[in-house]
């Protein structure tokens, strides 16, 4: 028994730029309207709405010609970012049909915007009553979303794409039976291969893909380059064609839109609690928590303000989140009230619940985490730090500090304890030599005069020669003084009478 064949579905959205504006209920679309893009030195039409098409304006025409045909034509340049965002949202929407959904990125190589989705529907079609049922359901769903689409199912992604773009006429969706790709694709024009040699193929008199079947691949390669054969093999399933399936990003966010703007802070807080409850319940169900929360608030004048809070540990505690937002919400100035709210969880991570009552260390850790949350939200989480080792031999970089919330994540091992290193390390501060010596017998530093008592042998520390700015080579002396303090003096390695003495640190 042979393995069940793979089946791929392609969704082509030929009028994506126009549909995006139609979804936003743009009133300009009532009259003749086109979207355009700068291409080959002129603005060219990408999509035209029906009333523009009635006047003979089609994709590819230059905008100047279109304006000559129809003087009251309105136009707008395409917005690639918004279209890609719409496509990504659609990718998430398609998750209901199959988990393997990819944005077709082939147009990007030609400088176009992506306008298609590839779905791996192998083994998923029976859930929708076969391939036809799946296609019908998809087409109905896309129509509800006001998107015009052409769909095709085939054995390979390329064949599905070719049929969606060139085979499926008049918006009808097609399903190519298993193993019939070769026969079906034979009727398609050579442009369906999307190779760079389409023009050369036409010039050679080759009109359809079927005409290529009889030509030896070595001859095709010699005449038109390797690209044609590779694409043909991909279309017929002789060459693997993996989909680029990115992990589905799941934004943990909830939003709420109100019929009327509200003014009172208490009402906003009550709404925030409801948002928190739904979002955090979702996080809790999956055993997750978030270390940061961002609340975006819109007024009726589209004035958007974003408030942020952080936590020392991933949390899904509704009361804690609402409490942290209470103070910034109090300070929020929204003169026209609040119409729309969106709460997003950032830095989502797994929570490790603890039994607090029995575990004294755990209770202390909980108290410490609450304290860090409190401190971090006022002085900033970057300012609450803990020492951490780092991979360097330089005294000033041997250990560093990381934010408490990042502690324990991917840290190297602690270096062996070095009792010969000072307790405090400064950027070298020059001293004023009163009585010379090597090191000076008497010197002034920070308005205090020090007398040298004893000196340890110098230590030479080389810079990191492999880095871009390695810094100087330096010698260090440990100098005990009669005043009691033990200082770490440093100098560049020169002749003794030329040394530039400075204090690099103080010992405990």
């Amino acid at each position: 028994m042979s393995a069940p064949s793979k089946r791929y579905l392609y969704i082509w959205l030929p009028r994506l730029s126009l549909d995006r504006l139609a979804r936003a209920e743009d009133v300009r679309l009532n009259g003749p309207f086109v979207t355009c893009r700068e291409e080959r030195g002129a603005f060219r039409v990408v999509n035209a709405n029906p009333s523009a098409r009635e006047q003979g304006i089609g994709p590819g025409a230059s905008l100047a010609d279109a304006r000559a045909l129809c003087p009251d034509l309105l136009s707008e340049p395409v917005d690639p970012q918004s279209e890609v965002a719409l496509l990504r949202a659609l990718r998430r929407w398609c998750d209901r049909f199959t988990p393997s959904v990819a944005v077709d990125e082939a147009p990007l190589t030609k400088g176009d915007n992506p306008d298609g989705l590839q779905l791996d529907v192998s083994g998923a079609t029976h859930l929708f009553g076969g391939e036809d049922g799946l296609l019908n359901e998809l087409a109905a769903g896309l129509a509800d979303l006001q998107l015009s689409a052409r769909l095709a199912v085939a054995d390979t992604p390329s064949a599905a794409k070719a049929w969606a773009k060139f085979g499926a006429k008049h918006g009808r969706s097609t399903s190519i039976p298993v193993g019939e790709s070769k026969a079906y694709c034979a009727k398609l024009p050579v442009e369906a291969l999307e190779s760079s040699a389409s023009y050369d193929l036409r010039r050679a008199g080759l009109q359809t893909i079927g005409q290529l079947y009889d030509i030896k691949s070595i001859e095709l390669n010699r005449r038109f380059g390797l690209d044609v054969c590779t694409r043909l093999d991909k279309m017929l399933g002789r060459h693997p064609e993996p989909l680029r399936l990115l992990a589905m990003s799941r934004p943990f966010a909830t939003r709420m839109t109100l019929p009327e703007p509200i003014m009172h802070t208490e009402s906003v807080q009550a709404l925030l609690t409801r948002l928190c409850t739904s979002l955090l319940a979702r996080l809790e169900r999956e055993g997750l928590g978030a270390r940061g929360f961002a609340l975006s608030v819109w007024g009726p004048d589209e004035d958007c303000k974003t408030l942020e809070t952080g936590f020392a540990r991933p949390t899904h505690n509704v009361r804690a989140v609402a409490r942290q937002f209470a103070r910034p919400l109090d300070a929020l100035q929204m003169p026209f009230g609040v119409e729309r709210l969106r709460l997003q969880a950032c830095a989502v991570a797994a929570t490790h619940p603890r039994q607090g009552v029995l575990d004294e260390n755990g209770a202390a850790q909980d108290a410490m985490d609450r304290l860090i949350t409190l401190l971090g939200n006022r002085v900033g989480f970057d300012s609450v730090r803990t020492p951490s080792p780092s991979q360097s031999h330089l005294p000033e970089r041997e250990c560093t500090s990381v934010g408490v919330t990042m502690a324990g994540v991917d840290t190297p091992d602690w270096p062996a304890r070095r009792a010969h290193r000072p307790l405090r390390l400064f950027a070298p501060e020059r001293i004023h030599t009163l009585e010379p010596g090597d090191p000076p017998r008497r010197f002034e530093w920070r308005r205090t005069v020090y007398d040298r008592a004893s000196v340890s042998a110098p230590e030479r520390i080389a810079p990191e020669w492999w880095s871009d700015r390695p810094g100087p080579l330096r010698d260090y002396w440990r100098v005990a003084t009669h005043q009691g303090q033990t200082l770490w003096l440093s100098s560049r390695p020169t002749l003794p009478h030329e040394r530039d003495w400075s204090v690099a640190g103080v010992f405990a």
Partner: protein
Amino acid sequence: MADQPARGTAFNDVSGVSYARPSRPRPSLQVLHSLPAGVRRQVRLADEPAPSHALSILPDAGAPTLEWGRTHEVMGWGADRFALGVLNAAHRLLSPHPPVWVGRSRDVYTLRPEALGAFIPPASLTLVDAGRRADILWAAEQILRAPAQTVCVVQLSQGPNLAESRRLQVASEAGRSMGLILIAGRAHSSTCQTRWECDTPDVWRAVKNKTGPVGEWAIPNVGGPEVAAP
């Protein structure tokens, strides 16, 4: 104890300490601290546990100890060493007392974990870089008030005044934590329990002590190689 008076009367226990048992809810700590110092020392509320446990940082018997729930001030260039000695003593207790160091960035980030490792595991230390003096004092108050029972080292350029140090004192009593205020410049009259001067080599001098002796003591030799790095 069935024979104890039920309503607000004073009584003596066998050791001769006077207790006042309040009939009403106990007054807040602010009210208590508003009493004159002499009266405050005499009157202990019966429901308040005596601040019996104290941290002994000096090996001599009869030497001053540092009480929990109090703030202590340290001055002089040896203040860092004193603070590390206290953190080391707190680290060796059974109950967890997380150490926190608060100050300006130049005070906090110049501390080297390699040398800290002789006294405490450096990874257990939390550094708080609060920019202005008001932020440092706010952070110190929150840390002392937190139920984590921290040992909070606060680095200030000038000592806290009476109001500031009373706030810190009330906070540390509420959290049963210990506040160590390292003063680089001048100290002012404050509500601290003890004040130390560490200007002389190998000597710590207690110049103020509300409950015990004052005098000079030799620095104990802590920070040997027995404390492992993290």
